[in-house]
């Protein structure tokens, strides 16, 4: 027999305006397990919480039901209050009579009161069956795996390494630096960027806490937050040089590595969008229609601005923004975010190096949101005679040695035809190839475009829904270098937060197995969507990995012997609760 106290909250008039709380108190009092019932204006207030603590001491309560708002709102508040009064926090539950009753039945006061009574009495049944549980602890491997050696991976690796934790940084290509290394420079601080990147790469390569694997890819991921086991295949660079000398073109011999890591940061970046997908812009068939990254090579140190077809310096150059972006029908629906800025930079550099040339920029909108960004674009328009034309380009085709661009200027409402020497397409930022497959290996979801999905679009932008897997940079979606670096440092902070203790706390509300009933049939192992079940090799019963279990209850339903149960959601509790409601 439990000694349960029930506290019915008015929530001002939110609850008491619809529900007759006095009747609820009267009805709940009749329950044999209930020794104390009271209603109060605001249970979540300090006096409300004090009332709970005082009553626990006075009536020697061993369970508490707070009939108030949704548990998502104040369950933690009330459990903390109960724990401070010496009662196990898992012996406290919220009965939701606000969101599920008073707010949705405002016109039916009598029925709302009956429903509230039933809900409160059912939660009383649950609490009387609740076990007192203690949080589970699990060890944390204080080492991180970072996938991708671009600026995001580099920044994240350095932040974590400098905090004193070992980092494994793997890169698919033979060099660190990613896409940033392919840029001539960045907008706002053009010339300094390549040097700064090289300095960061230098720091990564020489840092004692960072192990760099190039030509490396993730093969397999097992385990869970704090305890991942990652298999990586790498092709050694030194070996590559030797091999190439001996047998040119021979495949490198891959070497397999296995790492125990506590956290994984996905910093896989972006890839080029194929021009073949843009048939109206030449479909990649016209040599003098190139993409932004190809133009970057011409602008970079050692490069030369020239037409790929005949090597001549282009006198009229057309930049086409949104060449595939913001085009849900034919291209990608998203805005690639960086194009407005880099096109301005490229047009400026072109004009600096070919002063007699004329750059044109076709755009739909100029999205130059960022500190100093709009001023930058304005400066390009004002000081560099770049003619901005508002409208989408309809067609690009070859005419003799010229590339003809058909566009429109929507500001003056006239159609334009420009016989250009070179056309630069600002193609979309596509997710890095293999992102979806990597996401499947990591159990981290990707969106319809192939970018990794964050746990919450606003409030948890660097985490995935899989605990222990974090996101940095354009793997999550288009962003520029400052944003990428910010997110990389944010992901590093999240990893360090996880590494701040050698052990981590896990909710004890997980599945459990009654050893006497388990026949080790393995049904639960197959049904578990989180890979949390296995058959113990020695004891020959099903076991639960508490770190992976999400308490979904699939194993409970599947178990033919009723050996599987979820703590505090046992069938006997649920049936008792149903008896009160029906």
């Amino acid at each position: 027999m439990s000694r349960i106290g029930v506290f019915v909250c008015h929530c001002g008039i939110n609850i008491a305006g619809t529900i007759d709380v006095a009747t609820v108190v009267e009805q709940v009092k009749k329950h044999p397990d209930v020794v104390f019932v009271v209603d109060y204006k605001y249970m979540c207030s300090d006096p409300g919480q004090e009332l709970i603590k005082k009553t626990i001491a006075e009536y020697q309560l061993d369970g508490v039901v707070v009939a108030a708002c949704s548990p998502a709102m104040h369950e933690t508040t009330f459990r903390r209050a109960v724990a401070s009064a010496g009662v196990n926090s898992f012996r406290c539950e919220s009965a939701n009579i606000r969101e599920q009753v008073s707010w949705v039945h405002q016109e039916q006061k009598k029925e709302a009161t009956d429903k509230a009574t039933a809900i409160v009495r059912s939660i009383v049944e649950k609490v009387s069956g609740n076990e007192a549980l203690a949080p589970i602890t699990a060890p944390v491997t204080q080492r991180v795996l970072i996938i991708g050696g671009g600026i995001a991976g580099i920044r994240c690796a350095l932040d974590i390494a400098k905090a004193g934790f070992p980092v494994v940084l793997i890169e698919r290509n033979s060099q660190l630096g990613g896409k940033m290394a392919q840029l001539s420079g960045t907008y706002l601080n053009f010339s300094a960027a390549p040097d700064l990147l090289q300095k960061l790469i230098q720091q990564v390569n020489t840092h004692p806490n960072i192990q760099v694997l190039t030509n490396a890819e993730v093969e397999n991921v097992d385990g869970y937050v704090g305890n991942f086991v990652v298999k990586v295949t790498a092709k050694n660079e030194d070996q590559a040089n030797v091999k190439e000398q001996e047998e040119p073109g021979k495949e490198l011999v891959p070497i397999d590595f296995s790492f125990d890591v506590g956290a994984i940061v996905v910093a896989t970046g972006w890839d080029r969008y194929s021009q073949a997908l843009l048939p109206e812009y030449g479909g990649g068939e016209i040599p003098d229609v190139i993409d932004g990254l190809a133009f970057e090579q011409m602008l970079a140190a050692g490069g030369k601005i020239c037409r790929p077809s005949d090597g001549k310096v282009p006198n009229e150059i057309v930049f086409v923004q949104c060449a595939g972006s913001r085009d849900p029908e034919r291209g990608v629906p998203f805005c690639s975010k960086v194009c407005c800025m880099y096109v301005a930079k490229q047009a400026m550099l072109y004009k600096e190096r070919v002063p007699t040339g004329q750059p044109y920029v076709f755009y739909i909108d100029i999205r130059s949101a960022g500190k100093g960004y709009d001023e930058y674009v304005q400066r390009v328009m004002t000081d560099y005679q770049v003619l901005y034309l508002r409208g989408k380009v309809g067609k690009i085709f070859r005419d003799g040695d010229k590339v003809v661009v058909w566009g429109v200027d929507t500001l003056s409402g006239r159609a334009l035809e420009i016989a250009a020497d070179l056309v630069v397409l600002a193609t979309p930022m596509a997710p890095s190839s293999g992102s979806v497959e990597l996401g499947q290996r990591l159990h981290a979801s990707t969106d319809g475009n192939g970018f990794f999905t964050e746990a919450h679009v606003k409030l948890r932008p660097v985490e995935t829904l899989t605990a222990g897997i974090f996101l940095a940079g354009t793997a999550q979606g288009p962003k520029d270098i400052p944003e990428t670096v910010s997110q990389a440092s944010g992901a590093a902070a999240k990893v360090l937060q996880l590494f701040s203790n050698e052990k981590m706390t896990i909710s004890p509300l997980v599945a459990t197995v009654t050893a006497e009933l388990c026949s080790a049939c393995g049904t639960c192992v197959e049904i578990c969507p989180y890979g949390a079940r296995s058959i113990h090799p020695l004891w020959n019963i099903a076991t639960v990995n508490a770190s992976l279990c999400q308490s979904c209850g699939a194993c409970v339903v599947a178990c033919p012997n009723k050996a599987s149960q979820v703590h505090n959601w046992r069938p006997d509790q649920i049936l008792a609760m149903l008896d009160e409601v029906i």
Partner: protein
Amino acid sequence: MLDINFIDQVNTLSDQAIQLCYHCHKCTAGCPVTDQMEYGPDRILRMVQFGEKEKLLKCRDIWICVACETCGARCPNEIDAARVLGALREIAYSENVAVAEPGAVKFHKLFLLLVKNMGRMHEVSLLALHKLWTMNLFSDLPAGARLFMMGKVPLKPHLIRRQGEVKRIYDAFDPKKKQVSHGN
């Protein structure tokens, strides 16, 4: 295709940076005579950006502008469209382009003549001379009567002291007269 050097000429003459215009159309939204115009100040600026010289010099709009400067006062990029239109008038006049609004040129000439000789504007003289010169004697009569009743059209001119000074300024800038150094 597009003559993008024309913008430099207009920029210099009007002392504006027309390439700054991002076409918010605020100038046209506030212009009191835009309903009389063919394009409006925003499209005039776009045409300058495109270098559509011939079309610009022939259009009525550059002569319709009353130079109230509302456009310039409201422009987020500090472009004084009235001065741009002024520069276009200047180019059109100096290049002997057929003026779309001949009455406007006559108005400007009479205005300058009056100020030169009287030292300041005299509305009645201007009105009378303009009507005679254009032979458009009876237009705007009710409006004129209303202005007269409000005392906006004083019969007696307000003369200034030392009228010769204004005339000397005119002479200093007259290319046909002897050049007087006026600094720059």
